[in-house]
């Protein structure tokens, strides 16, 4: 599959009061065209930092990109002119669905004002040139075409009575409806890639099921790729074609969804899957704590908590090992047998 997005060896440091935290340590990640890729990991593993690095919205003061590349359709976004990335990529070719839709709308403007403001700059019909803010004009003809597209997309995300809904304020929508609006706004610029940052964590399980189904149907119909970060393995199982698991700033394993859940090869992946409460009430935690990123353990960062660790694991970080097509693991001692065997 031709890769739409390809991250290679990305290193990002954060300057904190406690020292320099190595938040991303040589991350590799691929997203193919039309593919839904899950980025799974526990809090603090760096999945949100990776999503922000791809979008180019890392906090300017604290974050330092130390190396690596983020190739999108062949161009390295880290080395491109920021103005070009801003005009053509961010918010247009790559859009974003936030975790908490309630803080992503301004509470004082009707939804229409906010969506049309987005369309003024990021609509697929907008040209890249022209004067910048605040002199940008919004020609009436394009406005009407964009508004038509907005209404159609709101119908696609199943907002009842879209024309009336547009006149309402964000607080008049329920949490599930607001997340539907966010999905509509992410689809409207007709992007090639949507980065969804834990979009269903704040929703109830029945609403989550509705939203996941809707999102998957819409992106599959339009051929849009999705990078879906989540800490919930069940959600990843529901929506992803492929899953990448991260631990403490390193990617551990990448596999097609079916193989990821049936034949995980990395000890961390296996421990993570085993810690989901089972139907019989069995509980298996992972002993130990997530390491500090200021002074991370050398080599594979999971080795202090790993049952299979050997001196080798404390030296160099293991290289990528392909177990099957599309199934890569970074471990010296990958587990061969399927789960339950």
């Amino acid at each position, binding site marked *: 599959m031709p890769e739409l997005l390809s991250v290679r060896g990305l290193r990002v440091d954060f300057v904190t009061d406690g020292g320099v935290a190595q938040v991303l340590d040589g991350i590799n990640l691929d997203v193919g065209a039309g593919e839904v890729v899950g980025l799974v990991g526990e809090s603090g593993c760096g999945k949100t930092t990776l999503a922000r690095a791809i979008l180019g919205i890392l906090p300017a003061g604290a974050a330092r990109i130390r190396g690596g590349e983020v190739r999108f359709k062949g161009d390295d976004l880290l080395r491109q002119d920021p103005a070009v990335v801003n005009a053509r990529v961010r918010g247009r070719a790559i859009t974003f669905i936030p975790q908490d839709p309630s803080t992503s709308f301004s509470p004082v403007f009707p939804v229409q004002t906010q969506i049309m403001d987005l369309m003024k700059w990021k609509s697929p019909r907008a040209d890249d040139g022209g004067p910048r803010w605040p002199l940008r004009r919004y020609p009436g003809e394009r406005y009407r075409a964009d508004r038509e597209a907005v209404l159609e997309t709101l119908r696609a995300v199943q907002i009842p009575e879209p024309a009336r809904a547009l006149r309402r304020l964000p607080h008049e929508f329920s949490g599930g409806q607001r997340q539907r609006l966010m999905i509509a706004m992410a689809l409207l610029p007709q992007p090639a890639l949507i980065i969804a940052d834990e979009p269903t964590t704040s929703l109830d399980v029945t609403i989550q099921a509705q939203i996941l189904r809707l999102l998957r149907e819409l992106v599959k119909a339009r051929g849009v790729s999705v990078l879906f970060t989540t800490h919930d393995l069940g959600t990843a199982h529901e929506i992803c074609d492929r899953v990448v698991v991260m631990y403490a700033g390193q990617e551990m394993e990448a596999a097609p969804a079916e193989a990821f859940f*049936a034949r995980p090869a990395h000890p961390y992946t296996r421990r993570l899957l085993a810690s*989901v409460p089972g139907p019989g009430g069995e509980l298996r935690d992972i002993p130990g704590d997530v390491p500090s990123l200021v002074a991370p353990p050398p080599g594979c960062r999971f080795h202090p908590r790993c049952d299979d660790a050997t001196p080798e694991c404390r030296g160099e970080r293991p290289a990528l090992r392909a177990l099957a097509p599309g199934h890569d693991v970074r471990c010296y001692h990958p587990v061969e047998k399927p789960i339950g065997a």
Partner: protein
Amino acid sequence: MNASGAPLLELVDLVRHFPVRDAFGRRTGWIRAVDGVSLAVDAGETVGLVGESGCGKSTLGKTVMGIHAPTAGDIRFAGREIGRLPPRERRAIARDLQYVYQDPGASLDPRWKVVHSLHEPLKIHTRLSRVERDREVRAILAAVGLPNAHLDLYPHELSGGQQRRVGLARILTLRPRMVILDEPTSGLDVSVQASVLKLFRGLQETFALTYVFISHDLAVVRAMCARIAVMYLGKLVEVGETAAVFEEPRHPYTRSLLAAVPRIGGRRVTLDFTLEGEPPNPRDVPSGCRFRTRCPLVQDVCAVEEPPLRVVDGRRVACHFA
């Protein structure tokens, strides 16, 4: 029912309504957060209370705790009505009945050392001497798996998980009989969640605790609770043994709720999920059965007659067609 007969906690038609007021302070309606709930909890058991946000499960827990006064109905704890006690007498009950918020660690005072936080409940509620208190505190700290050296640390010197353990220790110093856990694992990673749940189980055994486990996470409730009560818009719709309810849910709402839980390794549940819409506003509860606006089995009778909780197959279900 346990051997001695009476349940430890018994709710009888418990109601808690909140008034809705307009800008001039005039009452324009009621939010019927808890609307006639009857439930018995035996000593030593763990009862799960599940439902979606806004169904009233937290209001129920807080009304039992005395944070909200009940609008009507009885709360009987250890055989005594506690919902309408005068504040002084009600405070004495707090020793036996404790409440754990989402993150018990967050309720520690950042300017107090751990030892100070753990002594405080004993100072307020008991007449133990300093030496006796100290012995008690050390025993509890060991029970939650922390070394004595942590007594002289401030909360910010502990990790989040350790803070959580100290918060739990603080609740346990009074040796309560019942603990209401309100969403104790929401927002936790699965591996941390597993160790927190293990801790709850161990403490229940050590201190002979009775838990009311409020959660929206059905996998967690299934792992922790022998009995489960499903709540929808202020009412219980199904109460029964957890295994039986998961095996064969009888209320259409329970069925939809269980159908929405992802099953890792199985078929994607979202492919078959059919429940439409969202729960109605608790200000404006539908007539008859509250679930009828979303129910796949809805008939004319559902709009007219509210189905009572009746016993079906050894469990209680509120549906005309269960």
